[in-house]
């Protein structure tokens, strides 16, 4: 699960990382008042950032810096009017803009190849790390944290020296790197990124300029499988950005991802569900969704899946592809019959059920006049044929 920047910053703060203050607001007026408070506290400039769960906010005009309250209000109004990658901006982060001396990248990911938490640091911060990885992979320094011991002090120092943060910032950097891994472990995150981690210039209490490290942006992805043991993190789910169909699917325990095509797919098993989409495409159609009803699904779950698929007005045909192992074919067939009796609109359906109790399923489907298919390829071709030509 992705969480918003402001929430990610709270999690970093909880591990003792240096994060400049901020407020989250939902209107230009509130942005103005938050900015006034920041200016009063001594900020020279204020940053306004769209809170959306998609990347590329900066390029889309979702981040602006302003020098007075009027300009902040105008910037906030402009950003709240934006849709970024199809997501309406509803919330803004407002806080003092840092005076940046130099930007770095610091991130931790779950690396499946080495089966370690890999900590990555680069002196090329502030830009997309994928871009750095593509153009100049040697600029990214990585090392693996021990699964039981975490990131060791010497490892953190090694990274600091690698990115040129030895000297006055060595201790600071090591503490941040260790806090980054702690953030990951404490919250069961599979990604924690600080980009940029920056050396910022501030005015000390004596009026002299001081330089220190600060986490200016944060991105955290949480492990969905661990949310059950972190109810406080589940509460960070941004329901504003969740489609109603996605919500229903999540609540029903159905894996669902909406796509742009016209052929709704209902499948058991994630690998087979992806394959079914691929075969629809290969047969000349476009899949409307990825949908995995999971193992052992019963009639009511099948009915819920049907509702979710039909809620998409673009769906012109439905392909049901079930290979019964734990899932019993006759249960699925019964679910389909029940669902069809109450469904909101009529669309052609092609059903393929093989494996456990397939013959009972076949008899039920035949008695209820469902169009059936025997092989994978045949099922995809028939679904594409009944859906009509792709857009």
């Amino acid at each position: 699960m992705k969480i918003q920047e402001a929430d990610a910053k709270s999690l970093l703060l909880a591990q003792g990382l240096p994060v400049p203050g901020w407020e989250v607001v939902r209107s230009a007026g509130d942005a103005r008042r938050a900015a006034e408070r920041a200016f009063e506290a001594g900020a020279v400039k204020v940053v306004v950032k769209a809170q959306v769960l998609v990347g590329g906010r900066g390029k889309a005009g979702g981040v602006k810096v302003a020098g007075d309250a009027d300009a902040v209000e105008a910037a906030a109004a402009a950003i709240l009017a934006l849709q970024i990658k199809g997501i309406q901006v509803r919330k803004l982060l407002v806080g003092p803009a840092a005076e940046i001396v130099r930007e770095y990248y610091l991130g931790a990911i779950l690396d499946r190849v080495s089966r370690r938490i890999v900590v990555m640091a680069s002196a090329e911060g502030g830009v997309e790390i994928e871009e750095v990885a593509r153009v100049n992979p040697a600029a990214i320094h990585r090392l693996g944290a021990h699964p039981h011991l975490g990131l060791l002090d010497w490892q953190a120092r090694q990274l600091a020296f690698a990115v040129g943060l030895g000297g006055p910032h060595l201790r600071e950097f090591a503490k941040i790197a260790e806090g980054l891994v702690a953030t990951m472990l404490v919250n069961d995150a599979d990604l924690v990124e600080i980009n940029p981690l920056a050396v910022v210039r501030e005015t000390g209490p004596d009026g002299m300029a001081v330089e220190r490290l600060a986490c200016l942006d944060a991105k955290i992805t949480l492990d969905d499988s661990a949310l059950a043991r972190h109810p406080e993190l589940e509460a960070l789910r941004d329901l504003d950005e969740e489609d109603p169909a996605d919500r229903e699917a999540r609540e029903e325990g159905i894996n669902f991802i909406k796509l742009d095509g016209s052929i709704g797919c209902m499948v058991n098993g994630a690998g087979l569900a992806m394959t079914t989409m691929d075969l629809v495409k290969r047969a000349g159609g476009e899949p409307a969704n990825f949908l995995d009803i999971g193992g052992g699904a019963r009639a009511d779950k099948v009915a819920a899946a049907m509702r979710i698929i039909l809620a998409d007005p673009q769906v012109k045909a439905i392909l049901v592809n079930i290979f019964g192992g734990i899932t019993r074919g006759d249960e699925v067939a019964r679910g389909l019959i029940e669902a069809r009796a109450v469904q909101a609109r009529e669309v052609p359906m092609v059903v393929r059920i093989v494996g456990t109790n397939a013959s009972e399923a076949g008899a039920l489907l035949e008695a209820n006049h469902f169009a059936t298919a025997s092989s994978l390829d045949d099922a995809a071709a028939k679904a594409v044929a009944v859906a009509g030509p792709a857009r």
Partner: protein
Amino acid sequence: MSILVGRDTRLVVQGITGREGDFHSRATLEYGTPIVAGVTPNKGGQRALDGRVPVFDTVAEAVRETGANTSCIYVPASGAPDAVLEAAAAGIATIFCITEGIPALDMLKVVEVVRAAGARLIGPNCPGATSPGRAKVGIIPGSIHREGGAGVVSRSGTLTYEAVQVMTDAGIGQSTCVGIGGDPIIGTTFLDVLRLFAADPETDAIVLIGEIGGSAEEEAAAWATEHLQGVPMAAFIAGRTAPEGRRMGHAGAIISGGSGTAASKIAALEAAGIRVAASPMEIPAILRAAGYQG
């Protein structure tokens, strides 16, 4: 000979008295695989599966009393990591974890301990393994198999069943079919299984079924170039049409930062001389075209 499971498999089922454990253990017994013990804490002394299997409180006791050498875990996600660690501590050599939804950081720690104990973990979130005619551990339906020489390794469940069924229908039998699991952190990788197949005198062809996410297929392809020349192989990769940044059901099936795409995996496999089927139905023809006679 087959790999991972075979005639010398002596199985202990952890979580045998649960709904899943009971259901799938019955099918395992029907397939002729000896389940020598079950383990459910505080149910030691009872008998499971209509009295056919003794239940113990601990895995150590089950090993001591029955000589169990392989474990299959159906314990729910909250207790499954501990179940794996208990099996490893008790000296179980091969541990299958069927359980889905285990937090990845838990597995990170578990895999490290299992490695140090010298045990092998398959999964989690995997369907298990079958060596047709010899033994079946896990939830793969026994009916889809045929005895033969083709090894099958896959990250999926039902997709594997499709591929195996198509092979069986075409008269191509299997030495062992292994589902390694769809999670990002798993105990045994494609490459590990390829090494086992390469060393198995009874496996004379290999089918590799991958999906988007990670780079395990690319690594396997690179290794195959060096070590599996002359072995008839076929592959299938699910997720050609998957969008970037979305987790496709399996926690491990996600394209991120442009890596882990089906295109990259297909290119790596084809570069290694392994033909990639556009549909699982093409797998038998590809094996035949690669010279497979079995």
